[in-house]
């Protein structure tokens, strides 16, 4: 037994070396777009328009960021994005949590229909809805209003929130609530004192994820707001001036958009990834 393992060891080490080489290749390929965005954002603008660019950083400057902030109203756009995303998340969380409680803690006639319905509306492509939504907001005089955009964003934030929170709630044992109720808590009291604290991490993760989705939305923001009221994604996508596209400031803008979102995403990714396919192995 020991003989085979000493013989196998160098072979295994060589195999490991091969896998690691392949792994490094994956690392470099997958990470390159990110690296190049940061590299371009911080390099002097004249080095960015080099037909044979140096792959290593050529110097560190913030002038691209200054230029990006100049090109159009970044802070206004970011502010509007923030208002819209936070409002959508706040409304979505309250409304969504009530609905999630209903379908995860109550047995009632029609429960299955509601669950199927909520799953189904998640599948309707947003792009298909843009025409009637545009006409609806036009009729309601909500075109080019942040409130109109907030209501519209609930189309994708709300079903997703309900579904995610449902997943978190069903993982909290009912027995805990029942014990609290046996000890004299009302149903609401049991929820507030027992379920809510346990649900808090799930609520935070779902809010952050919802915030990211709302922040990243592009099509509705483009269609339902005029240029003076554009949000951050539209700001970035329209990054062309009359002199053409200035790529270095555009990458600076991309960096400003991406870094906070990627950091938020890193914080909640683990919790959310499970939600989309929760228990698929069990199924």
């Amino acid at each position: 037994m020991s003989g085979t393992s000493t013989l196998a060891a160098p072979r295994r080490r060589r195999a490991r070396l091969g896998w690691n080489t392949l792994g490094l290749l994956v690392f470099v390929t997958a990470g390159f777009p990110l690296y190049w965005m940061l590299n371009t954002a911080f390099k002097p603008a004249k080095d960015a328009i080099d037909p044979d660019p140096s792959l290593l950083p050529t110097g560190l400057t913030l002038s691209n960021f200054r230029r990006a902030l100049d090109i159009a109203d970044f802070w206004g756009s970011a502010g509007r994005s923030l208002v819209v995303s936070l409002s959508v998340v706040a409304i979505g969380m309250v409304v969504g949590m009530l609905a999630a409680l209903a379908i995860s803690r109550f047995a009632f006639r029609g429960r299955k229909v509601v669950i199927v319905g909520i799953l189904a509306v998640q599948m309707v492509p947003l792009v298909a809805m843009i025409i009637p939504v545009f006409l609806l907001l036009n009729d309601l005089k909500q075109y080019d209003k942040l409130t109109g955009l907030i209501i519209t964003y609930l189309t994708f934030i709300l079903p997703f929130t309900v579904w995610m929170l449902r997943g978190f709630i069903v993982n909290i044992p009912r027995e805990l609530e029942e014990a609290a109720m046996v000890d004299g808590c009302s149903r609401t009291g049991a929820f507030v004192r027992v379920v809510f604290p346990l649900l808090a991490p799930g609520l935070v993760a779902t809010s952050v994820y919802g915030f990211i989705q709302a922040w990243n939305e592009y099509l509705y923001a483009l269609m339902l707001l005029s240029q003076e009221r554009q949000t951050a994604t539209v700001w970035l996508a329209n990054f062309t001036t009359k002199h053409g596209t200035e790529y270095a400031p555009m990458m600076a803008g991309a960096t400003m958009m991406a870094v906070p979102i990627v950091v938020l995403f890193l914080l909640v990714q683990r919790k959310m990834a499970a939600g989309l396919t929760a228990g698929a192995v069990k199924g």
Partner: protein
Amino acid sequence: MSAADTTTPAKVPPPRPAPPPAVPGRPRGQRTSGRAATPWLLLAPCLLVLTLVMAYPLARLVTLSFQKFGQSQLWGFQPAEWVGFANFAGVLGDGEFWAVVLRTIVFAVGCVAFTMVVGMAIALLLQRVSAWLKVLINIVLVASWGMPVIVATTVFKWLFDSDYGVFNALLSRLPGVEMVGHNWFASGPEGLAVIMLLVVWGAVPFVAITLGAGLTQVPKELEEAARLDGAGAWGVFRHVTLPVLKPIIVMLTTLSVIWDMGVFPQVFVMRGGHPEAEFQVLNTYSYDRAFVVNDYAQGSAIALVTVGLLLGVVAVYMRQMLKIGEVE
């Protein structure tokens, strides 16, 4: 009777009189179901919002596709006129529409196939590399997964820029290759290949990480047994790993099909808001009909056809999700 009732000890003390019961007149032993109205009250705000922002627009989408609805109807100069199936007939009878359908399907199938194969390969690779490298790859995967689509699209636009894009510069370093100045978006297939790369780059992390989580659940004993029975690496993968992962794979594939058939911003932003004819996929085509040609009715008809095309895939996804729901 739900599972929770059976776990309550048989000798439950009689309900205490002191705290007023949350639900007055609650029937005995029904604490998990509550009064029939409570869940509906909790659901009411959600259903109300969804009716306003989903059900109404969806209904309007259907009615629109049977009407004549253009600029003058939008401004209210003319009432919308019912035209029966004329919009559908117009769309389905148009050769360009079928070209778009074919392009969309080829594009989506390519995206999904590459995403699944590369995702699976990376998931398997992650099991075999050293721990430090695994951490590094995971960070890059999660970071690129978290990149906003618009940001990723602008970055790829820059990578593939014809004059100063780093991709052309790198290719030109190969001996005998001169690619600087090559415009990747001059032809539809080449441009869509770049867009496919963008979509796959963004989609692989989710697939790889989810499959990686699934791989940890493959029983080691099963793999061991298969190996003892003489199965090679491929045999173990084919007959042990794949069957165990099948539910996850079905879920990921259906989700990817739904997402990749619905690609919009990648094409739209990559082409500067005006995709050329050879870049049109179903979603941009529907948008184009509605907001560029100002034929909202025909745009709606195209959107409906798109939803119809996806229904089969959605059904598979939903069945899988509901199967999980029943386990709880």
